[in-house]
């Protein structure tokens, strides 16, 4: 496993909800990334987001790790839930809230702030908080 893959894995496993998107919540590079974040917000869940645009290798390694070809990708407690269509559909049916509660327990949907995390080279930490 490459160093970048290791950092991706640590972030996915270390944060309750992680969404790989194009851009940031404030400056979205793709409508589908916004759809995924909106679906999470609709059930009071806040995510850590990672922008895949700065380095094409992030997306490549992410796909290699989890076998999912498109962005966004939503992870809850280290497991892939799906892309924008899936989380939107699950939010509409009520299953998204159920699934998050099942995986994260009480407080998994506390409506806290979204955070942007940058996968940084050689910092010793799996990630660096930038906002």
């Amino acid at each position, binding site marked *: 496993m490459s160093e970048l893959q290791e950092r991706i894995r640590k972030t996915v496993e270390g944060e309750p909800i992680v969404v790989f998107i194009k851009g940031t919540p404030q400056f979205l590079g*793709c409508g*589908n990334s916004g759809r995924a974040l909106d679906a999470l917000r609709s059930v009071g869940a806040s995510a850590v987001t990672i922008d895949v645009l700065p380095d094409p290798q992030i997306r490549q390694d992410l796909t290699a790790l989890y076998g*999912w*070809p*498109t962005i966004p990708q939503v992870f809850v407690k280290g497991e892939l*839930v799906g892309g*924008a*269509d899936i989380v939107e*559909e699950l939010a509409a049916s009520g299953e998204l809230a159920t699934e998050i509660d099942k995986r994260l327990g009480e407080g998994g949907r506390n409506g806290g702030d979204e955070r942007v995390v940058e996968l940084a080279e050689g910092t010793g930490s799996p990630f660096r908080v930038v906002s």
Partner: protein
Amino acid sequence: MSVERLQALLRGAFPEAEECDIADRTGTGDHFHVLVVDKQFHGMPLLEQHRAVNTALAEALEDGTIHELRISTRGAA
């Protein structure tokens, strides 16, 4: 890769599908919406249903033919 080719890939992957369509959402040949209604999806988690569609179109996703893919799946009645 043409829409017809993508359609053929889907039909090959879901030969018994009740519905199996791919639509060019924007008319630019790179943003697509796939609909597959297949009894094999009954009881299958949504993630695995979508994974099956992604697998069917893996080559086109890999080579950039498909820039955006929306997926709708359900089990046939």
